[in-house]
Protein backbone atom coordinates (compact mmCIF):
# COMPACT_ATOMS: atom_id res chain seq x y z
CA UNK A 1 0.00 0.00 0.00
CA UNK A 2 1.15 3.49 -0.75
CA UNK A 3 1.41 5.93 2.10
CA UNK A 4 -0.62 9.12 1.88
CA UNK A 5 1.01 12.29 3.16
CA UNK A 6 -1.68 14.15 5.02
CA UNK A 7 -2.18 17.89 5.38
CA UNK A 8 -0.82 17.88 8.95
CA UNK A 9 2.41 16.12 7.87
CA UNK A 10 2.93 18.72 5.17
CA UNK A 11 2.31 21.58 7.64
CA UNK A 12 4.85 20.19 10.11
CA UNK A 13 7.46 19.78 7.40
CA UNK A 14 6.90 23.29 6.00
CA UNK A 15 7.11 24.82 9.47
CA UNK A 16 10.44 23.11 10.00
CA UNK A 17 11.77 24.16 6.63
CA UNK A 18 10.71 27.84 6.77
CA UNK A 19 11.39 28.31 10.50
CA UNK A 20 7.90 29.60 11.22
CA UNK A 21 5.15 28.46 13.52
CA UNK A 22 2.59 25.88 12.38
CA UNK A 23 -0.22 28.39 12.89
CA UNK A 24 1.31 30.67 10.29
CA UNK A 25 1.60 27.79 7.84
CA UNK A 26 -2.04 26.84 8.46
CA UNK A 27 -3.03 30.46 7.82
CA UNK A 28 -1.07 30.47 4.57
CA UNK A 29 -2.64 27.22 3.41
CA UNK A 30 -6.19 28.30 4.26
CA UNK A 31 -5.78 31.55 2.32
CA UNK A 32 -4.25 29.68 -0.61
CA UNK A 33 -7.20 27.30 -0.59
CA UNK A 34 -9.67 30.18 -0.65
CA UNK A 35 -7.83 31.94 -3.46
CA UNK A 36 -7.68 28.85 -5.63
CA UNK A 37 -11.39 28.12 -5.17
CA UNK A 38 -12.33 31.73 -5.94
CA UNK A 39 -10.21 31.90 -9.07
CA UNK A 40 -11.61 28.58 -10.21
CA UNK A 41 -15.13 29.91 -9.80
CA UNK A 42 -14.40 33.09 -11.74
CA UNK A 43 -11.88 32.00 -14.43
CA UNK A 44 -12.64 28.25 -14.50
CA UNK A 45 -8.91 27.67 -14.75
CA UNK A 46 -5.74 28.12 -12.71
CA UNK A 47 -2.13 27.38 -13.62
CA UNK A 48 0.33 26.62 -10.82
CA UNK A 49 3.90 26.45 -12.11
CA UNK A 50 5.55 23.26 -10.95
CA UNK A 51 2.32 21.32 -10.56
CA UNK A 52 0.05 21.79 -13.54
CA UNK A 53 -3.34 23.11 -14.62
CA UNK A 54 -6.53 22.91 -12.56
CA UNK A 55 -9.66 23.54 -14.60
CA UNK A 56 -13.40 23.18 -14.36
CA UNK A 57 -15.09 21.14 -17.08
CA UNK A 58 -18.84 21.15 -17.70
CA UNK A 59 -20.02 17.57 -17.48
CA UNK A 60 -23.16 15.60 -16.86
CA UNK A 61 -24.43 12.33 -15.44
CA UNK A 62 -25.30 9.55 -17.80
CA UNK A 63 -28.79 9.85 -19.28
CA UNK A 64 -29.89 6.62 -17.57
CA UNK A 65 -28.50 7.58 -14.13
CA UNK A 66 -31.11 7.65 -11.38
CA UNK A 67 -30.99 10.99 -9.61
CA UNK A 68 -32.80 12.39 -6.63
CA UNK A 69 -35.56 14.93 -7.24
CA UNK A 70 -34.11 18.40 -7.71
CA UNK A 71 -30.52 17.22 -8.20
CA UNK A 72 -28.79 18.83 -11.20
CA UNK A 73 -27.99 16.58 -14.13
CA UNK A 74 -25.24 18.85 -15.45
CA UNK A 75 -22.51 20.35 -13.31
CA UNK A 76 -18.82 21.33 -13.17
CA UNK A 77 -16.07 18.78 -12.64
CA UNK A 78 -12.54 19.56 -11.44
CA UNK A 79 -9.81 18.19 -13.71
CA UNK A 80 -6.04 18.26 -13.24
CA UNK A 81 -3.38 18.04 -15.92
CA UNK A 82 0.14 17.53 -14.61
CA UNK A 83 3.06 19.48 -16.05
CA UNK A 84 5.60 17.67 -18.18
CA UNK A 85 8.25 18.15 -15.51
CA UNK A 86 6.10 16.55 -12.83
CA UNK A 87 5.18 13.72 -15.19
CA UNK A 88 8.86 12.96 -15.83
CA UNK A 89 9.71 13.20 -12.15
CA UNK A 90 7.00 10.74 -11.18
CA UNK A 91 7.81 8.34 -14.02
CA UNK A 92 11.53 8.35 -13.25
CA UNK A 93 11.44 4.69 -12.27
CA UNK A 94 10.28 3.48 -15.70
CA UNK A 95 11.70 6.29 -17.85
CA UNK A 96 14.48 4.10 -19.28
CA UNK A 97 12.03 1.49 -20.55
CA UNK A 98 10.91 1.53 -24.13
CA UNK A 99 8.16 -0.22 -26.07
CA UNK A 100 9.35 -3.39 -27.81
CA UNK A 101 7.97 -4.99 -30.92
CA UNK A 102 7.42 -8.65 -30.12
CA UNK A 103 8.79 -11.36 -32.39
CA UNK A 104 6.44 -13.41 -34.55
CA UNK A 105 6.57 -16.43 -32.28
CA UNK A 106 5.38 -14.38 -29.35
CA UNK A 107 2.96 -12.17 -31.24
CA UNK A 108 1.04 -15.15 -32.57
CA UNK A 109 -0.76 -17.10 -29.90
CA UNK A 110 1.72 -19.61 -28.52
CA UNK A 111 0.40 -23.15 -28.27
CA UNK A 112 -0.54 -24.32 -24.81
CA UNK A 113 1.78 -27.31 -24.85
CA UNK A 114 4.84 -25.18 -25.58
CA UNK A 115 3.97 -22.78 -22.77
CA UNK A 116 3.42 -25.55 -20.27
CA UNK A 117 6.77 -27.12 -21.25
CA UNK A 118 8.50 -23.79 -20.75
CA UNK A 119 6.80 -23.36 -17.40
CA UNK A 120 8.06 -26.76 -16.20
CA UNK A 121 11.59 -25.97 -17.37
CA UNK A 122 11.64 -22.60 -15.63
CA UNK A 123 10.31 -24.21 -12.46
CA UNK A 124 13.15 -26.73 -12.41
CA UNK A 125 15.76 -24.05 -13.04
CA UNK A 126 14.41 -21.88 -10.24
CA UNK A 127 14.43 -24.72 -7.75
CA UNK A 128 18.02 -25.58 -8.66
CA UNK A 129 19.13 -21.96 -8.33
CA UNK A 130 17.49 -21.61 -4.94
CA UNK A 131 19.28 -24.73 -3.69
CA UNK A 132 22.62 -23.48 -4.98
CA UNK A 133 22.04 -20.04 -3.54
CA UNK A 134 21.27 -21.44 -0.09
CA UNK A 135 24.36 -23.67 -0.06
CA UNK A 136 26.76 -20.97 -1.18
CA UNK A 137 25.36 -18.33 1.14
CA UNK A 138 26.04 -20.65 4.03
CA UNK A 139 29.64 -21.35 2.92
CA UNK A 140 30.68 -17.96 1.51
CA UNK A 141 28.73 -15.57 3.70
CA UNK A 142 31.69 -13.21 4.07
CA UNK A 143 32.39 -12.84 0.32
CA UNK A 144 28.78 -12.00 -0.62
CA UNK A 145 28.64 -9.14 1.83
CA UNK A 146 31.09 -7.04 -0.15
CA UNK A 147 29.51 -7.77 -3.48
CA UNK A 148 28.64 -4.81 -5.68
CA UNK A 149 26.23 -5.49 -8.56
CA UNK A 150 27.37 -4.68 -12.10
CA UNK A 151 25.16 -3.31 -14.84
CA UNK A 152 26.07 -5.95 -17.43
CA UNK A 153 25.14 -8.85 -15.20
CA UNK A 154 21.87 -7.29 -14.34
CA UNK A 155 20.09 -8.26 -17.52
CA UNK A 156 21.04 -11.93 -17.38
CA UNK A 157 18.31 -14.36 -18.32
CA UNK A 158 17.16 -17.53 -16.61
CA UNK A 159 18.58 -19.76 -19.38
CA UNK A 160 22.04 -18.23 -19.02
CA UNK A 161 21.99 -18.79 -15.30
CA UNK A 162 21.10 -22.41 -15.91
CA UNK A 163 24.08 -22.86 -18.24
CA UNK A 164 26.48 -21.33 -15.78
CA UNK A 165 25.27 -23.48 -12.93
CA UNK A 166 25.65 -26.62 -15.02
CA UNK A 167 29.18 -25.80 -16.21
CA UNK A 168 30.82 -25.13 -12.88
CA UNK A 169 30.63 -27.10 -9.61
CA UNK A 170 28.83 -25.57 -6.62
CA UNK A 171 31.58 -24.58 -4.18
CA UNK A 172 33.89 -22.99 -6.80
CA UNK A 173 31.36 -20.65 -8.43
CA UNK A 174 31.01 -17.47 -6.49
CA UNK A 175 29.96 -15.72 -9.72
CA UNK A 176 26.88 -17.84 -10.23
CA UNK A 177 25.53 -16.92 -6.85
CA UNK A 178 26.15 -13.30 -7.58
CA UNK A 179 24.35 -13.46 -10.92
CA UNK A 180 21.48 -15.23 -9.29
CA UNK A 181 21.26 -12.53 -6.69
CA UNK A 182 21.27 -9.86 -9.34
CA UNK A 183 18.54 -11.62 -11.21
CA UNK A 184 16.26 -11.77 -8.22
CA UNK A 185 17.63 -8.49 -6.87
CA UNK A 186 18.03 -7.19 -3.44
CA UNK A 187 16.24 -3.88 -2.66
CA UNK A 188 19.52 -1.97 -2.43
CA UNK A 189 20.80 -3.11 -5.82
CA UNK A 190 17.63 -1.96 -7.57
CA UNK A 191 18.00 1.65 -6.58
CA UNK A 192 21.60 1.71 -7.77
CA UNK A 193 20.83 -0.04 -11.06
CA UNK A 194 17.95 2.16 -12.04
CA UNK A 195 20.04 5.17 -11.27
CA UNK A 196 17.55 6.95 -9.00
CA UNK A 197 19.99 9.37 -7.46
CA UNK A 198 17.64 11.27 -5.22
CA UNK A 199 19.18 12.45 -2.02
CA UNK A 200 15.85 12.88 -0.29
CA UNK A 201 14.89 9.36 -1.25
CA UNK A 202 17.98 7.85 0.40
CA UNK A 203 17.51 10.05 3.46
CA UNK A 204 13.86 9.08 3.84
CA UNK A 205 14.51 5.48 2.97
CA UNK A 206 12.93 4.30 6.17
CA UNK A 207 9.66 6.04 5.44
CA UNK A 208 9.30 4.80 1.87
CA UNK A 209 10.96 1.42 2.07
CA UNK A 210 7.60 -0.23 1.50
CA UNK A 211 7.01 1.71 -1.73
CA UNK A 212 10.04 0.71 -3.73
CA UNK A 213 9.47 -1.80 -6.53
CA UNK A 214 12.70 -3.59 -5.71
CA UNK A 215 11.82 -7.23 -5.38
CA UNK A 216 9.96 -7.73 -8.62
CA UNK A 217 11.48 -5.20 -10.97
CA UNK A 218 13.81 -7.85 -12.39
CA UNK A 219 10.87 -8.73 -14.58
CA UNK A 220 11.50 -5.63 -16.67
CA UNK A 221 14.60 -7.15 -18.23
CA UNK A 222 12.50 -7.44 -21.37
CA UNK A 223 12.57 -3.68 -21.78
CA UNK A 224 16.00 -2.95 -23.00
CA UNK A 225 17.51 0.37 -21.99
CA UNK A 226 17.38 3.05 -24.70
CA UNK A 227 21.17 3.04 -25.33
CA UNK A 228 21.47 -0.69 -25.91
CA UNK A 229 18.29 -1.11 -27.84
CA UNK A 230 19.70 -0.60 -31.35
CA UNK A 231 22.62 -2.98 -30.90
CA UNK A 232 20.91 -6.35 -30.86
CA UNK A 233 17.22 -7.04 -30.99
CA UNK A 234 17.64 -10.79 -31.07
CA UNK A 235 18.99 -11.02 -27.57
CA UNK A 236 15.96 -9.10 -26.39
CA UNK A 237 13.63 -11.57 -27.99
CA UNK A 238 15.36 -14.51 -26.35
CA UNK A 239 15.15 -12.87 -22.98
CA UNK A 240 11.48 -12.18 -23.60
CA UNK A 241 10.82 -15.90 -23.99
CA UNK A 242 12.05 -16.64 -20.51
CA UNK A 243 10.46 -13.64 -18.91
CA UNK A 244 7.31 -13.51 -20.99
CA UNK A 245 5.20 -15.21 -18.36
CA UNK A 246 6.68 -13.04 -15.65
CA UNK A 247 5.51 -9.99 -17.54
CA UNK A 248 2.08 -11.46 -18.11
CA UNK A 249 1.74 -11.34 -14.40
CA UNK A 250 1.41 -7.59 -14.63
CA UNK A 251 2.08 -5.62 -11.54
CA UNK A 252 1.24 -8.52 -9.29
CA UNK A 253 4.94 -9.32 -9.51
CA UNK A 254 5.88 -6.10 -7.81
CA UNK A 255 5.30 -7.25 -4.29
CA UNK A 256 5.74 -4.56 -1.68
CA UNK A 257 7.73 -6.75 0.65
CA UNK A 258 11.41 -6.63 -0.27
CA UNK A 259 12.33 -9.53 1.93
CA UNK A 260 10.47 -12.20 -0.02
CA UNK A 261 12.48 -12.87 -3.17
CA UNK A 262 10.77 -16.22 -3.85
CA UNK A 263 8.55 -16.40 -6.90
CA UNK A 264 5.06 -17.71 -6.65
CA UNK A 265 5.44 -21.22 -8.01
CA UNK A 266 1.75 -21.65 -8.75
CA UNK A 267 2.04 -18.88 -11.28
CA UNK A 268 3.94 -21.07 -13.68
CA UNK A 269 1.20 -23.67 -13.90
CA UNK A 270 -0.27 -23.94 -17.42
CA UNK A 271 -3.76 -23.29 -16.01
CA UNK A 272 -2.92 -19.61 -15.80
CA UNK A 273 -2.33 -19.37 -19.53
CA UNK A 274 -5.38 -18.51 -21.59
CA UNK A 275 -5.31 -18.54 -25.37
CA UNK A 276 -8.16 -17.18 -27.40
CA UNK A 277 -8.76 -17.44 -31.10
CA UNK A 278 -11.51 -15.32 -32.51
CA UNK A 279 -12.35 -16.44 -36.02
CA UNK A 280 -16.13 -16.43 -35.89
CA UNK A 281 -16.35 -13.83 -38.67
CA UNK A 282 -15.18 -16.40 -41.22
CA UNK A 283 -18.07 -18.71 -40.36
CA UNK A 284 -20.53 -15.83 -40.48
CA UNK A 285 -19.27 -14.81 -43.93
CA UNK A 286 -19.52 -18.38 -45.22
CA UNK A 287 -23.08 -18.70 -43.89
CA UNK A 288 -24.12 -15.46 -45.63
CA UNK A 289 -22.58 -16.60 -48.92
CA UNK A 290 -24.42 -19.93 -48.80
CA UNK A 291 -27.76 -18.19 -48.12
CA UNK A 292 -27.22 -15.78 -51.04
CA UNK A 293 -26.25 -18.63 -53.37
CA UNK A 294 -29.38 -20.61 -52.48
CA UNK A 295 -31.62 -17.57 -52.99
CA UNK A 296 -30.08 -16.78 -56.40
CA UNK A 297 -30.36 -20.38 -57.50
CA UNK A 298 -34.03 -20.53 -56.54
CA UNK A 299 -34.82 -17.30 -58.44
CA UNK A 300 -33.07 -18.23 -61.69
CA UNK A 301 -33.78 -21.96 -61.78
CA UNK A 302 -37.39 -21.89 -60.58
CA UNK A 303 -39.06 -23.78 -63.50
CA UNK A 304 -36.41 -26.48 -63.49
CA UNK A 305 -36.73 -26.86 -59.72
CA UNK A 306 -40.54 -27.13 -60.03
CA UNK A 307 -40.17 -29.80 -62.61
CA UNK A 308 -37.65 -31.68 -60.51
CA UNK A 309 -39.88 -31.56 -57.44
CA UNK A 310 -42.97 -32.63 -59.39
CA UNK A 311 -41.09 -35.55 -60.82
CA UNK A 312 -40.58 -36.79 -57.26
CA UNK A 313 -44.22 -36.50 -56.24
CA UNK A 314 -45.83 -37.69 -59.44
CA UNK A 315 -46.41 -41.40 -59.73
CA UNK A 316 -43.70 -43.17 -61.59
CA UNK A 317 -45.23 -44.94 -64.51
CA UNK A 318 -43.56 -48.06 -65.59
CA UNK A 319 -43.09 -47.62 -69.33
CA UNK A 320 -44.68 -50.39 -71.35
CA UNK A 321 -42.08 -52.09 -73.37
CA UNK A 322 -42.87 -51.73 -77.00
CA UNK A 323 -42.16 -54.68 -79.20
CA UNK A 324 -39.11 -54.42 -81.37
CA UNK A 325 -39.40 -53.58 -85.07
CA UNK A 326 -38.65 -57.14 -86.12
CA UNK A 327 -41.35 -58.41 -83.78
CA UNK A 328 -43.85 -55.88 -85.18
CA UNK A 329 -43.05 -57.00 -88.70
CA UNK A 330 -43.59 -60.57 -87.69
CA UNK A 331 -46.84 -59.63 -86.00
CA UNK A 332 -48.00 -57.80 -89.12
CA UNK A 333 -47.18 -60.82 -91.13
CA UNK A 334 -49.26 -62.98 -88.79
CA UNK A 335 -52.20 -60.48 -88.80
CA UNK A 336 -52.53 -60.39 -85.03
CA UNK A 337 -54.71 -58.01 -82.96
CA UNK A 338 -51.72 -56.26 -81.34
CA UNK A 339 -50.69 -54.78 -84.67
CA UNK A 340 -53.40 -52.06 -84.59
CA UNK A 341 -52.64 -50.80 -81.02
CA UNK A 342 -48.94 -50.48 -81.58
CA UNK A 343 -49.39 -48.73 -84.89
CA UNK A 344 -51.87 -46.18 -83.44
CA UNK A 345 -49.69 -45.29 -80.44
CA UNK A 346 -46.66 -44.80 -82.64
CA UNK A 347 -48.56 -42.55 -85.00
CA UNK A 348 -49.95 -40.50 -82.10
CA UNK A 349 -46.56 -39.78 -80.68
CA UNK A 350 -45.31 -38.85 -84.10
CA UNK A 351 -48.16 -36.41 -84.47
CA UNK A 352 -47.58 -34.69 -81.17
CA UNK A 353 -43.83 -34.39 -81.46
CA UNK A 354 -43.94 -33.08 -85.04
CA UNK A 355 -46.57 -30.43 -84.41
CA UNK A 356 -46.19 -27.39 -86.66
CA UNK A 357 -48.25 -24.26 -86.90
CA UNK A 358 -48.31 -23.30 -90.55
CA UNK A 359 -51.99 -22.58 -91.11
CA UNK A 360 -54.20 -20.36 -88.96
CA UNK A 361 -57.96 -20.20 -88.49
CA UNK A 362 -58.37 -16.81 -86.87
CA UNK A 363 -56.62 -13.80 -85.22
CA UNK A 364 -57.85 -12.45 -81.89
CA UNK A 365 -56.93 -9.15 -80.17
CA UNK A 366 -56.68 -9.57 -76.43
CA UNK A 367 -58.93 -7.41 -74.26
CA UNK A 368 -58.86 -7.22 -70.46
CA UNK A 369 -59.95 -10.42 -68.71
CA UNK A 370 -59.42 -12.71 -71.72
CA UNK A 371 -56.93 -15.56 -71.27
CA UNK A 372 -55.37 -18.08 -73.60
CA UNK A 373 -57.06 -20.90 -71.66
CA UNK A 374 -60.47 -19.35 -72.37
CA UNK A 375 -59.70 -19.14 -76.08
CA UNK A 376 -58.51 -22.75 -76.09
CA UNK A 377 -61.73 -23.82 -74.38
CA UNK A 378 -63.71 -21.85 -76.93
CA UNK A 379 -62.02 -23.36 -80.00
CA UNK A 380 -61.10 -26.92 -78.96
CA UNK A 381 -63.19 -27.62 -75.86
CA UNK A 382 -60.38 -27.88 -73.27
CA UNK A 383 -58.47 -25.27 -71.31
CA UNK A 384 -55.26 -27.29 -71.45
CA UNK A 385 -54.77 -26.65 -75.16
CA UNK A 386 -53.69 -23.03 -74.53
CA UNK A 387 -50.21 -24.46 -75.02
CA UNK A 388 -50.72 -24.57 -78.79
CA UNK A 389 -51.77 -20.92 -78.91
CA UNK A 390 -48.71 -19.93 -76.91
CA UNK A 391 -46.36 -21.90 -79.11
CA UNK A 392 -47.90 -20.45 -82.27
CA UNK A 393 -47.42 -16.86 -80.94
CA UNK A 394 -44.04 -17.20 -79.24
CA UNK A 395 -42.71 -14.19 -81.15
CA UNK A 396 -45.34 -11.83 -79.64
CA UNK A 397 -45.48 -13.19 -76.08
CA UNK A 398 -42.46 -12.94 -73.78
CA UNK A 399 -44.09 -14.34 -70.64
CA UNK A 400 -46.98 -16.81 -70.74
CA UNK A 401 -48.36 -15.44 -67.44
CA UNK A 402 -48.48 -11.80 -68.54
CA UNK A 403 -50.00 -10.78 -71.84
CA UNK A 404 -50.54 -7.09 -72.44
CA UNK A 405 -53.92 -5.83 -73.67
CA UNK A 406 -54.07 -5.27 -77.45
CA UNK A 407 -51.70 -8.04 -78.55
CA UNK A 408 -52.90 -10.01 -81.54
CA UNK A 409 -52.89 -13.80 -81.23
CA UNK A 410 -53.13 -16.18 -84.16
CA UNK A 411 -55.08 -19.37 -83.54
CA UNK A 412 -53.52 -22.30 -85.37
CA UNK A 413 -55.29 -24.95 -87.40
CA UNK A 414 -54.70 -28.28 -85.60
CA UNK A 415 -55.18 -31.88 -86.51
CA UNK A 416 -58.07 -33.62 -84.76
CA UNK A 417 -55.71 -36.08 -83.08
CA UNK A 418 -53.93 -33.22 -81.31
CA UNK A 419 -57.20 -31.94 -79.78
CA UNK A 420 -58.67 -35.25 -78.65
CA UNK A 421 -59.73 -34.81 -75.02
CA UNK A 422 -60.37 -38.50 -74.45
CA UNK A 423 -56.80 -39.54 -75.34
CA UNK A 424 -55.12 -39.86 -71.90
CA UNK A 425 -51.65 -40.27 -73.34
CA UNK A 426 -52.02 -36.98 -75.27
CA UNK A 427 -53.41 -35.15 -72.23
CA UNK A 428 -50.47 -36.29 -70.07
CA UNK A 429 -48.06 -35.00 -72.66
CA UNK A 430 -49.86 -31.66 -72.82
CA UNK A 431 -49.66 -31.39 -69.01
CA UNK A 432 -45.91 -32.05 -69.10
CA UNK A 433 -45.54 -29.37 -71.74
CA UNK A 434 -47.53 -26.95 -69.56
CA UNK A 435 -45.15 -27.51 -66.62
CA UNK A 436 -42.13 -27.03 -68.90
CA UNK A 437 -43.48 -23.70 -70.17
CA UNK A 438 -44.00 -22.54 -66.57
CA UNK A 439 -47.60 -21.45 -66.56
CA UNK A 440 -48.86 -20.57 -63.08
Amino acid at each position, binding site marked *: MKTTVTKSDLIAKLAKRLDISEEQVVNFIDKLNE*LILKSLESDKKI*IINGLGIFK*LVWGSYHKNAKLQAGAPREFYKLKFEAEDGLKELV*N*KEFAHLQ*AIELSEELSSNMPLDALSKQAVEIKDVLSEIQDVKGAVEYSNAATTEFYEPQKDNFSITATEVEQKTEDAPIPETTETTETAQTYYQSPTSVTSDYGISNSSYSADNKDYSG*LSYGSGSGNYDTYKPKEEFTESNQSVNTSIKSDYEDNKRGFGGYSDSNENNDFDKNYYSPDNVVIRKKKTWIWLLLGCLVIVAVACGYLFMKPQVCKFVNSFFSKKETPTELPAVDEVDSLIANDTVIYEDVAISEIDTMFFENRKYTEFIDTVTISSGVTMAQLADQYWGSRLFWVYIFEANKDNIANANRISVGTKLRIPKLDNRLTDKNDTRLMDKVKELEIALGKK
Partner: protein
Amino acid sequence: MDNKELISLLSKKTKTTQEKSKEFLNSFIEEITNYMANGANVEFLDLGIFENIVREQKIITNPKTQKKVLYPPKNVVDLKVAKPIKEYLKTIEK
Protein backbone atom coordinates in the same frame (compact mmCIF):
# COMPACT_ATOMS: atom_id res chain seq x y z
CA MET B 1 -4.23 33.00 -12.98
CA ASP B 2 -0.42 32.67 -12.79
CA ASN B 3 1.94 32.14 -9.90
CA LYS B 4 2.69 35.88 -9.90
CA GLU B 5 -0.91 36.92 -9.39
CA LEU B 6 -1.37 34.19 -6.82
CA ILE B 7 1.66 35.43 -4.84
CA SER B 8 0.49 39.05 -4.88
CA LEU B 9 -3.02 38.08 -3.76
CA LEU B 10 -1.62 35.75 -1.09
CA SER B 11 0.60 38.49 0.33
CA LYS B 12 -2.39 40.82 0.47
CA LYS B 13 -4.57 38.26 2.22
CA THR B 14 -1.96 37.17 4.78
CA LYS B 15 -0.62 40.72 5.21
CA THR B 16 2.99 39.67 4.57
CA THR B 17 5.62 40.64 2.04
CA GLN B 18 5.59 39.16 -1.45
CA GLU B 19 9.00 37.57 -0.87
CA LYS B 20 7.71 35.59 2.07
CA SER B 21 4.61 34.42 0.29
CA LYS B 22 6.72 33.49 -2.75
CA GLU B 23 9.10 31.51 -0.56
CA PHE B 24 6.16 29.74 1.05
CA LEU B 25 4.49 28.85 -2.25
CA ASN B 26 7.69 27.58 -3.84
CA SER B 27 8.60 25.44 -0.85
CA PHE B 28 5.03 24.14 -0.68
CA ILE B 29 5.15 23.01 -4.34
CA GLU B 30 8.65 21.59 -3.90
CA GLU B 31 7.62 19.48 -0.93
CA ILE B 32 4.64 18.08 -2.79
CA THR B 33 6.70 17.19 -5.88
CA ASN B 34 9.37 15.58 -3.70
CA TYR B 35 6.81 13.34 -2.05
CA MET B 36 5.27 12.52 -5.41
CA ALA B 37 8.64 11.59 -6.91
CA ASN B 38 9.11 9.07 -4.11
CA GLY B 39 5.83 7.39 -4.97
CA ALA B 40 3.61 8.68 -2.16
CA ASN B 41 0.08 10.07 -2.37
CA VAL B 42 -0.18 13.67 -1.16
CA GLU B 43 -3.16 15.56 0.19
CA PHE B 44 -3.40 18.83 -1.73
CA LEU B 45 -5.13 21.52 0.33
CA ASP B 46 -8.87 20.81 0.60
CA LEU B 47 -9.19 20.04 -3.09
CA GLY B 48 -8.32 16.37 -2.90
CA ILE B 49 -5.47 13.89 -3.03
CA PHE B 50 -2.74 13.64 -5.64
CA GLU B 51 -2.62 9.95 -6.41
CA ASN B 52 0.41 8.15 -7.75
CA ILE B 53 -1.09 5.57 -10.10
CA VAL B 54 0.77 2.81 -11.89
CA ARG B 55 -0.38 2.05 -15.41
CA GLU B 56 0.44 -1.60 -15.92
CA GLN B 57 2.40 -2.95 -18.85
CA LYS B 58 0.31 -4.16 -21.74
CA ILE B 59 0.53 -5.80 -25.14
CA ILE B 60 -0.86 -3.61 -27.90
CA THR B 61 -1.56 -4.56 -31.51
CA ASN B 62 -0.84 -2.03 -34.20
CA PRO B 63 -4.09 -1.90 -36.22
CA LYS B 64 -2.26 -1.12 -39.48
CA THR B 65 0.54 -3.69 -39.36
CA GLN B 66 -1.11 -6.15 -36.93
CA LYS B 67 2.17 -6.41 -35.04
CA LYS B 68 2.17 -6.79 -31.27
CA VAL B 69 4.09 -4.36 -29.09
CA LEU B 70 4.95 -4.77 -25.41
CA TYR B 71 4.26 -1.39 -23.85
CA PRO B 72 6.18 -0.60 -20.63
CA PRO B 73 4.57 0.36 -17.29
CA LYS B 74 4.18 3.99 -16.34
CA ASN B 75 3.64 6.08 -13.23
CA VAL B 76 0.93 8.71 -13.58
CA VAL B 77 -0.39 11.53 -11.36
CA ASP B 78 -4.09 12.06 -10.93
CA LEU B 79 -6.18 14.26 -8.66
CA LYS B 80 -8.89 12.50 -6.71
CA VAL B 81 -11.29 15.33 -5.91
CA ALA B 82 -12.67 15.53 -2.37
CA LYS B 83 -16.39 15.01 -1.82
CA PRO B 84 -17.15 18.45 -0.27
CA ILE B 85 -15.51 20.12 -3.26
CA LYS B 86 -17.57 18.01 -5.65
CA GLU B 87 -20.76 19.05 -3.84
CA TYR B 88 -19.65 22.68 -3.87
CA LEU B 89 -18.98 22.60 -7.63
CA LYS B 90 -22.50 21.34 -8.27
CA THR B 91 -23.88 24.60 -6.85
CA ILE B 92 -22.00 26.71 -9.42
CA GLU B 93 -24.11 27.60 -12.44
CA LYS B 94 -22.82 27.82 -15.98
